[in-house]
């Protein structure tokens, strides 16, 4: 069983939600990203999504757009992201490590080279925001050969017939987009998200991981029982940007601990 599947299996048995934390690699700089990723993993994140910066991220809200631009200005490349993954892997054998990005930087790098590096670095999978199943064959093939997954998305706009096709064309967890919109913090969860997860659950046994707009422990609590995992991105990236390093690190740790407590069902903290 793959590392990610095992992770979701155990979480299910223990009746908790797996916490995924997203950060933009290179924001505010590369060594900060490493420090913040380690803080997240030490504070209860079980999966870390390393955001590969892209100049034109069409699915991102302002927070991740701006962090990506800073990272690009810092000269961050895909090799930097893979290097970070590899260093994290050396110290966190059990953690899920994913690369998240957009098609163009991956194909500019070369898919076969990417497959080799993903295997060498111990990366568990690739999340590509602008790669629907219709265009995913080559990526899929390369990731399978590297014992990694190409994560698939379902959105609130995906109808059941299409959902079946998406589900049958891949493996590993499914990334459920909680809302029709771009990434970014929200006060409220989309009211339709629980029904969306319940309907999707009827179609598949694969773990369902919810992302987009998940910003607080309160959101995580209301997803318990319906989601196998949650992704928190913009809320964490915002904290990463604090210019006072000790405040930044403290806030990052606190945010992840709160989210993790909610994910584990320790509701008294909220």
């Amino acid at each position: 069983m793959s590392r990610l599947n095992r992770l979701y299996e155990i979480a299910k048995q223990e009746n908790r939600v797996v916490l995924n934390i997203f950060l933009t690699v290179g924001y505010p700089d590369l060594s900060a990203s490493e420090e913040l990723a380690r803080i997240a993993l030490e504070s209860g994140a079980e999966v870390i999504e390393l955001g590969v910066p892209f100049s034109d991220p069409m699915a991102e809200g302002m927070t991740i757009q701006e962090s990506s631009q800073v990272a690009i200005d810092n000269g961050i490349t895909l090799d930097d992201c893979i290097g970070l993954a590899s260093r994290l892997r050396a110290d966190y054998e059990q953690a899920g490590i994913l690369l998240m990005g957009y098609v163009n930087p991956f194909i500019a790098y070369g898919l076969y080279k990417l497959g080799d590096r993903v295997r060498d670095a111990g990366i568990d999978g690739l999340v590509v925001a602008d790669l629907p199943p219709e265009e995913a064959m080559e990526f899929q093939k390369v990731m399978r050969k590297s014992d990694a997954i190409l994560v698939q998305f379902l959105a609130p706009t995906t109808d059941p017939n299409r959902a079946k096709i998406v589900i049958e064309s891949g493996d590993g967890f499914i990334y459920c987009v909680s809302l029709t919109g771009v990434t970014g913090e929200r006060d409220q969860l989309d009211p339709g998200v629980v029904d969306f997860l319940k309907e999707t659950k009827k179609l598949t046994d694969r773990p369902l991981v919810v992302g987009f707009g998940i910003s607080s422990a309160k959101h995580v609590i209301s997803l318990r029982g319906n989601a196998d995992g949650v992704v928190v991105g913009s809320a964490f990236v915002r904290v990463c940007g604090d210019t006072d390093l000790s405040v930044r690190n403290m806030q990052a740790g606190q945010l992840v601990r709160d989210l993790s407590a909610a994910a584990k069902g320790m509701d008294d903290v909220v």
Partner: protein
Amino acid sequence: MKTKDLKELPDGYGNFGVWGGMYLPETLMPAVRELDESYRYIRRDPEFKKRLGDLLTHYAGRPTPLYFASGLTEHAGGGQIYLKREDLAHTGAHKINAALGQGLLAQMMGKPRVIAETGAGQHGVATATVCSMLGLECAIYMGDLDVQRQQLNVFRMKVLGAEVVPVKTGSKTLKDAINEAIRDWVTNVRTTYYLLGSVAGPHPYPMIVRDFQRVIGEEIRLQMIERIGNLPDAVVACVGGGSNAIGAFFDFIQDEEVRLIGVEAAGCGVTSTRHAATLEKGKPGVLHGARTYVLQDDYGQIAEAHSISAGLDYPGVGPEHTNLREMGRAEYVSVTDDQALEALQLLAKTEGIIPALESAHAIYHAVKLASTMSRDDVVVANLSGRGDKDMGTVVKELDLHI
């Protein structure tokens, strides 16, 4: 691949050979699949065809004239130059063709709200015009830099009742306007029709926009046969995303004796970093949902394009153009900012026509080509839009004092 087969593209997944496709977030995939299905159905609907035909004739003013430019021909001193006068279409550019087609499509699909991106503002004006006429809500995304250099068109859109949203991210030009329009679309996809203005972007847009622009080439063919009893030797058009060019080219794809020449913007020169010559200097990549040539760095970050003309200032190009070039059916050259300015003045002085800076790129190359041809040869330049919107830029560049 035979040239006949090139006219059958794209396939069901939006591929022109290995180019095109639909690289989009899942949230939008059901929308583009629905649009593809609805379009394939609606385009055969007699009612739709009749309404569009009537509007093209009585509202947009089609067919547009094909004008023999005797002064320009004399200046070139070689082949005959004809101008396809898309600048005389309602709103002043070819963009009205696809805006009318897609506006009707949006209405028949029951979408009450329309969004669009615009570079030079011509597509924005055309979209605002059609929305006003059809009673649709309209928001136009426009790069902040373009808002400044195409002010006249911003005013026109506002008078027409559209909301103009300046985009202040990235290079603040067309590329960023498209990003922001896509983000709006992801958010409001259930109620909103994205009325894309070029043959770039994800399938089915390169097909839909081309089909609505084909009328340009169909008219050129008929008008040429009527005027000279023959097809032209070459058709020349400017290429940003490439909608006016594909419209002018498409009907001639099978006629291999007709040279099809696309003119990209060389900006400050293709050896500089400030240009928009995507086919000449780009590499294969994925931008805005399509696999095509893209101006980018070694790491796959999209480069900032540059052209004096906002409408050509785009680091991608329509996938069908990439395929036509790869198949050897169309040729692509580039013309600099200075050459475009020169052509704008030349056309103004020889013919009394002020072209858009975009179209001036095509005029420059048409003159250059004609000067190498014999008197019996005929080149058609697509005069895709008029130059009123560019007067601010031109006055500044030429240091004119009034």
